[in-house]
């Protein structure tokens, strides 16, 4: 719908092209995290195989057709991850049934401890529309890489913690990157970002 409107305006040629480019530039700038040089690949170009918290194999190609929200975390994470999960649960609550038309994934960066069963137990405390993904370390690394995210295991005495990308990645229904909701971003800013994806997909 929106694209058609743009095309109609596009009758004036050059002006519309400039407008479209301008829009693209604005969206990219808006989505870029400071310090990150690259944007995530579109979902259609991603390649990895993970297992969800119900034990089912998942590949990103299955995500196309619905807007997608992805974030990285781990269930041993005491501060950032439960906070992000409750933020997302609150957004989903605000979006209501509209959010049923989205894919929402937590990708574990701690496959050593986060088995599908562990993820299932943990996620039962949050919105049931959030799906946990885990897998071999090699596949997790492939996933992290195509999102241009990072994670690093940090030893801590007889234990370890994991530094990881904290933002929530958004993708349009066709798989194109649709922005990042930064950690600490106000929900008055976060919600419209998701609503825009949903509106474009309806």
């Amino acid at each position, binding site marked *: 719908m929106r694209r058609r409107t743009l095309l109609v305006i596009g009758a004036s040629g050059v002006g519309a092209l400039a407008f479209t480019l301008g829009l693209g530039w604005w969206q990219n700038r808006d989505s870029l995290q400071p310090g990150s040089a690259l944007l995530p690949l579109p979902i259609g170009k991603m390649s990895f195989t993970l297992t969800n918290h119900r034990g089912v194999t998942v590949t990103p190609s299955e995500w196309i057709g619905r807007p997608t929200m992805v974030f990285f975390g781990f*269930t041993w994470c005491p501060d950032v991850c439960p906070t992000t999960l409750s933020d997302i649960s609150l957004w989903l609550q605000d979006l209501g049934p509209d959010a049923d038309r989205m894919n929402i994934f937590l990708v574990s960066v701690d496959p050593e401890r986060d088995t599908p069963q562990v993820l299932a137990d943990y996620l039962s*405390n949050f919105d049931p529309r959030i799906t946990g993904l885990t897998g071999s370390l090699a596949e997790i690394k492939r996933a992290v890489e195509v999102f241009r995210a990072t994670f690093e295991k940090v030893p801590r005495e007889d234990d370890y913690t994991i530094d990881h990308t904290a933002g929530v990645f958004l993708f349009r229904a066709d798989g194109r990157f649709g922005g990042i909701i*930064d950690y600490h971003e106000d929900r008055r800013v976060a919600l419209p970002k998701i609503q825009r994806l949903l509106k474009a997909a309806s």
Partner: protein
Amino acid sequence: MKYLLTALLLSLSATPVLACETVQLGSLEISEAWSRASIGMARPGAFYVTIRNIGATDDALAGIATPVSGKPMLHETVVKDGVASMPHAPAIPVPADSTVQLEPGGYHGMLMGLTQVLKEGETFPVTLTFRDAGDVTVPVAIRGMGAKDAGCVDKKD
């Protein structure tokens, strides 16, 4: 939806009143101490609290102790270039005439080596050690895993 209902029912029947009271230590007012329910004891917990210094001299939170954790520490969550890390905070400054919050995504008490399961609706004690003001023990409300604050009704300032 079910988890929401459960959370609602639990929060109605629980008594977080105690933990919402302000505890005074000299010119420090400590309030809204809370933590999240844990799944078992293997994962570390986090402790949050609000400290108000109504005095004219600076102080600092130097450490915490609690029977529920074998290794409690002060941490600060830092998000740099989009990446979250959790360095150890040797002390948390509590400047004169200001309010400092240990809160999600910022300073927090890291409760490693849990000695008991943290159950929603219950409380546990945490002793705060201040550089100058000394020690004070406060009750900590255990809230649901999705909680983002102490859930005190008559929240100050």
